[in-house]
């Protein structure tokens, strides 16, 4: 943690002494001057707010306290207890889970599928198609929300019309409660370009000679895919998995654009009520800042747990070329 100085040979000044004396060097001061913006930003926009957020989660901080009408009171663990009792919290968690279970695997598998086909048609054509498949992912989420409302507009939407050609009676995607989450997940799969590019880069990184050696030994294509391709790209798959899981937890914009009217004052559309949406409504529509802070810490705990489990699983299954990476 302390810096390495030139004369690191004992006997000399103690570690603490050397550490302190490094502050006498001009370089140290310049370095701190350069990172000063980040230190300031970290203290004022990250660490401070975290402490305050933890504090608010134990108070009744709300609209009256913001206006200064009534004092802030500590309420102990009431906000956290309310997390268990508020029926919308359970709904929101369930919705987010169901949506994540559809979106994350769907997007990973489809992106991998696309990347594998792109590998088959050579660099030139692959490059052109890669651009085409990437374009949907630069569509802003609010526009995706509008597309959810229009393309999936029941029998009027083009999706149901297309399904009609092959003889399927499409559902009312945006009004039937149990079709809302699949609809959003489908639009997410449509925008899988980023995931595809990451996986494609990983696929190009797999050394050719592994496949040559395997086919010499008589391994089938399927066998090669499971025993060479998947292990070799597992770091990229794992990375995408974490990113997508966190994205699913933070799903806000598409659902809010499509299903929540700014003027409505209640959370009526409970089948599109994702956790982030409910948190936003609690914080900035009802101004229950204390309760919303408790929700934020629940979200924090969930993200950390998922990331932690992922890291543990990686240690076991993910193969890093050239030994384990920390």
């Amino acid at each position, binding site marked *: 943690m302390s810096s390495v100085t030139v004369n690191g040979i004992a006997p000399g000044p103690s570690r603490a002494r050397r550490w302190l004396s490094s502050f006498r060097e001009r370089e140290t001061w310049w370095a701190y001057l350069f990172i000063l913006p980040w230190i300031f930003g970290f203290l004022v926009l990250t660490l401070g707010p975290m402490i305050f957020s933890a504090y608010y989660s134990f108070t009744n901080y709300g609209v009256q306290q913001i206006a200064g009408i009534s004092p802030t009171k500590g309420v102990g663990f009431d906000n956290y207890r309310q997390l268990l009792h508020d029926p919308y919290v359970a709904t929101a968690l369930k919705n987010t889970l169901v949506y994540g279970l559809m979106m994350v695997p769907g997007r990973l598998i489809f992106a991998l599928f696309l990347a594998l086909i792109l590998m088959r*048609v050579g660099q030139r054509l692959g490059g052109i198609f890669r651009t085409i498949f990437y374009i949907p992912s630069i569509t802003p989420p609010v526009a995706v929300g509008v597309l959810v409302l229009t393309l999936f507009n029941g029998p009027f939407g083009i999706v149901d019309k297309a399904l009609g050609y092959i003889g399927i009676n499409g559902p009312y995607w945006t009004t039937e409660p149990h079709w809302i989450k699949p609809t959003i997940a489908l639009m997410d799969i449509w925008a899988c370009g980023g995931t595809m590019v990451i996986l494609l880069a990983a696929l190009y990184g797999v050394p050719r000679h592994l496949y040559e050696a395997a086919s010499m030994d008589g391994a089938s294509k399927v066998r090669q895919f499971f025993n060479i391709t998947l292990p070799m790209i597992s770091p990229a798959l794992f990375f995408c998995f974490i990113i997508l899981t966190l994205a699913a937890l933070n799903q806000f914009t598409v659902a809010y654009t499509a299903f929540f009217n700014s003027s409505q004052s209640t959370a009526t559309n409970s089948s599109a009520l994702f956790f982030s949406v409910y948190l936003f409504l609690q914080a900035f529509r009802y101004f229950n800042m204390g309760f919303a802070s408790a929700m934020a810490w629940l979200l924090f705990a969930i993200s950390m747990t998922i990331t932690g489990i992922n890291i543990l699983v990686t240690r076991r299954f993910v193969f890093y070329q050239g030994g384990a990476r920390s």
Partner: protein
Amino acid sequence: MSIVEQAAPIPQAAPWWRRRPQPKRSWLTRAFFVVLLLFLSVIFLYPLEWLVAAAFKPRGDTFDNTFLPTHWAWNFTGPNRPQPAVQYLFNVAPVGHWIFNSFRISFVGAFAVMLSSALIAFAFAYFRFPMRNFLFAILLATMMLPNEVTMIPVYLLWNHVATFTQDHFHYRIGTGTQYPLWVPNLFGSPFYIFLLRQFFMGIPRDYFEAARMDGDSFFSMWRRIALPLAKPALIVVFIFEVQAKWFDLMNPLIYLRDEATFTVPLGLKLIVDKFNLAGGSVPEYQVIVAGTLLLVLPMILLFAFFQKYFIRGIAVQGRKG
């Protein structure tokens, strides 16, 4: 690694009687894949084609789902008339302001975050200073922090700043203005700092030592050597942040109140609420779709010009996994 390299023997070709029939990739399989890709491309691009076509259809034709409009209509500008008559995008809301606001916030924010992140990343890459690894570990940890945890206190902070500046300077900075949307970018962003640090670490140290010999200050070293060499990475940071700002709905939703200060995503949300079927009046889907096209188009243009950097940036992001 080393074991694999040592053990890898030179593959010897099997004698012809033991050779398996090599599955030659014939033009037929290739053609099959190309056809499959063409089919998928149509599915991927059709929603955007639908959007462009629908933006030029008159009211009531939006959901006829024809490839091209049967009757062409210009939904962006037109005579200003009250509700039962057909509405035009630029008349129903200050759309011109929104576009200008979005562009300004995106570019100012991206420029700020690019420079500040580059400065901080350079310090972490070049200097050796006490607590460097500790501070960098904290920086990496904040990358995983969900935005929701800090969102509420940061809002309250901007609220205080707003009342303070209004009382003392008679000029409002904070909630209700656009400052909270880009001022945090002045303090760098962990992900970009990480990305740029990796890039700076790849620059040979000799370049900087040589500049030191020539009597450069640390600052001019950063300006004259580090920044020009890191240009590709800086462009990646810039376009990523422009994209992030252009996509953002939640922050404008939290901080902006006056319609004239809205950004395009927030404004479009307003239009959607006002003119869709649930809006209470005659639905004006042609206005909604025209607005959506305006939101999508700048991103398409940005992608067209900087395609290489988009793809490269994403690929690099995956590699560091």
